[in-house]
């Protein structure tokens, strides 16, 4: 039998400690049920799953009674640590977070050199975790235009294991900046359909938003057709200048996001994040879907929580479909990374 680890303690070193039996049971599901008048059976409305308790039988072998008692002491000391990783499987090193809550055993005639201890563990989270995390990385992608200012990106993620897990989803802003200047003034009250600009450092696309000017007086205009890097004229939807913008006035692409929607379509959950969103290329938002450690969305690892509503998604053990929908003032490029730890029922 392979190692059975509780923290750093091997309960099955095959020298002093021998695991006699170990459980593979799942935790009982407790359905919420109600009787419907006059029909057979029960109506289920939901279910709950509570903590896991399991017992591992370990034989302790000594060379003498004194040695046996010493080894029991060593074992008890190791088992007295809280919140340790308990790994009992042979195939892999998946683990539970466990506390040992009881050790049963005795010494008696006939048990001079060895005895079997019944060790009871409690795992407040009932599922086992993989020993390593997995990632799915989309790389930098231009999002697909949907409608209005909505852009989407779809990605399937397979969770592995035998039960759902809670991912951390990091969404990077990868839309590069596009900063240039006017080469022809735009006069207050006059309607225009183009901007004459210094050579564009990068291409702009139809639907991109350009902001003319800086500070208190600015005007947003919408690009009406694609323009390549180096272009000096940008077609925009007709606008009437709200002020006079002289030659040299700044023109910047506005790729700010106003909402990120994370739709996990396999289960039907939707999460909407509406503040503290990535602004410039390289910004990212971490969406921590673990209710115990997260249910948070944070920009660039900061402490401020983004405003959200909806449900944080899980990854199912089989292929799980995600669609990111971002409301953005320009065609966004993003990178999304799912980091997760596969989970097992036992």
């Amino acid at each position, binding site marked *: 039998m392979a190692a059975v680890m509780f923290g750093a303690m091997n309960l099955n070193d095959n020298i002093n400690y021998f695991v006699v039996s170990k459980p593979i049971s799942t935790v009982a599901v407790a359905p919420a049920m109600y009787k*419907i008048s006059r029909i057979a059976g029960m109506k*289920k409305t*939901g279910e709950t799953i509570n903590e896991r308790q399991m017992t591992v039988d370990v034989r302790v072998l000594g060379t003498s009674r004194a040695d046996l008692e010493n080894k029991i002491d060593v074992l008890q000391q190791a088992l007295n640590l809280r919140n340790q990783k308990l790994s009992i499987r042979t195939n892999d090193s998946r683990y539970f977070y466990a506390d040992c809550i009881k050790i049963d055993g005795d010494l008696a005639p006939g048990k001079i050199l060895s005895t079997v201890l019944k060790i009871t563990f409690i795992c407040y989270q009932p599922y086992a975790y993989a020993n390593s995390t997995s990632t799915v990385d989309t790389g930098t992608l231009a999002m697909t235009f949907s409608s209005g200012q909505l852009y989407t990106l779809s990605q399937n993620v397979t969770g592995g294991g035998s039960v759902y897990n809670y991912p951390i989803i990091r969404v990077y802003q990868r839309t590069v900046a596009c900063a240039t200047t006017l080469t022809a003034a735009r006069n207050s009250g006059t309607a225009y359909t183009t901007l004459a600009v210094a050579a564009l450092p990068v291409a702009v696309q139809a639907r991109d938003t350009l902001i003319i000017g800086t500070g208190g007086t600015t005007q947003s205009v919408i690009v009406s057709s694609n323009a390549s890097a180096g272009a000096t004229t940008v077609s925009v939807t007709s606008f009437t200048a709200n002020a006079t913008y002289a030659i040299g006035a700044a023109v910047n692409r506005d790729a700010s996001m106003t909402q990120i929607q994370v739709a996990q379509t396999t289960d039907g959950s939707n999460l909407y994040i509406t503040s503290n969103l990535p602004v410039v290329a390289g910004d990212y938002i971490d969406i921590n879907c673990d209710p115990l450690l997260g249910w948070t969305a944070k920009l660039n690892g900061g402490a401020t929580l983004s*405003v959200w509503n909806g449900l944080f998604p899980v990854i*199912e053990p089989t292929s799980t479909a995600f669609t990111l929908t971002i409301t953005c003032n320009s065609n966004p490029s993003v990178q999304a990374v799912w980091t997760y730890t596969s989970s097992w029922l036992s």
Partner: protein
Amino acid sequence: MPNGYTNDLSVYKTQQVLVYDSTGNFIDTLRDAPLLTGFKEVTSGGTSPIRVQLPRPMDNFDQDGVSGNLGTIGQGNIIKYYLYGPGLPTTGLLRYQGYIDTIEPEMNEHGEEFVAITIMPFSSVLGDRGCSSLVQMGIPDTAEGYVDILDMMKFWFNSKDPITNQVYTYPLVIDAIGTATTSGVEAYSAFYNQNLDSVFQTLTLLLPSNWFYRFNPENTVTINVASTTAQHTLVIGQHITNPQYRLDYTNLKNVVVYTGYTPSTDATGLSELNQGDPVEIGGQPVPIQYIAIGGSVLTMGERIAYLNNSRITDMDTLQTLAEGTLAQLNRVAIRAKIRVPDYRGGNGGYDIESFRVGDTIQIVNPDIPMSNKQFYHWDTDVWDTAYWDYKILTSASSVLFEQVLMIVGMDYGFDYVDIELDTLQPNLIQRFYNLYARVQDYTTI
């Protein structure tokens, strides 16, 4: 098609509890909040508060004002419960909201530590707000000067309390879609040193039968009359757990003697009110009075109720109140309590999130025989021919199961609701009694 997973929102319902500060800024979520349960909604009354126990150390429960804390647990913070699942908006259904009114950290004898918070719904404005100066609506004894009762109710949602300079019902607003435009009844009324509960109960009594107001979770208030057609049909054997019916005559009153204002005498010794009503006896003013008599006096004998409201100064309003009260009291109370499991999670049950107090329900028993069938008896029944289930009949020989009844109370339990159906409004009546107990001069029911 369900995917079989326990997170499948096409099958299961779940919740999210969000916390905002008192000005509406998002703070965080309550990850450890139990499922929403244990509150009661009623027609023409406020929603009950809920007490939520969060498993947190009693000295470190994210209390407001402590450095490093987000401060989710702070007096006045707003808690919103959103539900997600089949048939619910993807952005969530706001099912309950209120503000933290009590914070009770505790460590009990078992070593368990928790903080209990009491979340008070915003319908608490009923008890917390009121008018401290005279508010008159209409002109007494002048039909042309009367005001629609509905407009009287809406007044409190549109007018500012001079003490706070806030709208009386803030943050509650009228449900513009669900609220009627007119009640069809006009009257005069005056309010002074009354809280909104008292004001609304008085106005509700002035409305015709089966009008109600309801506090909605999104902080709106619906004022309307119950639909005469069933908005929900519940089938025994499919939707309901344990229907319980009760026909109750104990509170029936068929004579209502309603007494109002006692006029004073002017310098000439005549009472200020003199409309031909007997307001003076032996030169002394006596209160104005209206007696409403119901038809059941002939069959049941007199069951009299004396009511008094000295704020009523005109006979028309007094008559409206008396007739309205009689209409409410002079009837058998048909009360039903039923538990309805949510249809989410498995087959059977009903969409409990579609229920709102004030909605109307019809219970259908598919097992009952068709009308005009003969009743059978044990000693004469023929197997496979006789009917085993019969319609429950009221004294008026109408079929109980086929009646349209109004939801007057609803206890919410996340997976189910216990709803109280009635042709009357027992909660209203209880509050009505309380109201009149405060203002009456002598006998009450």
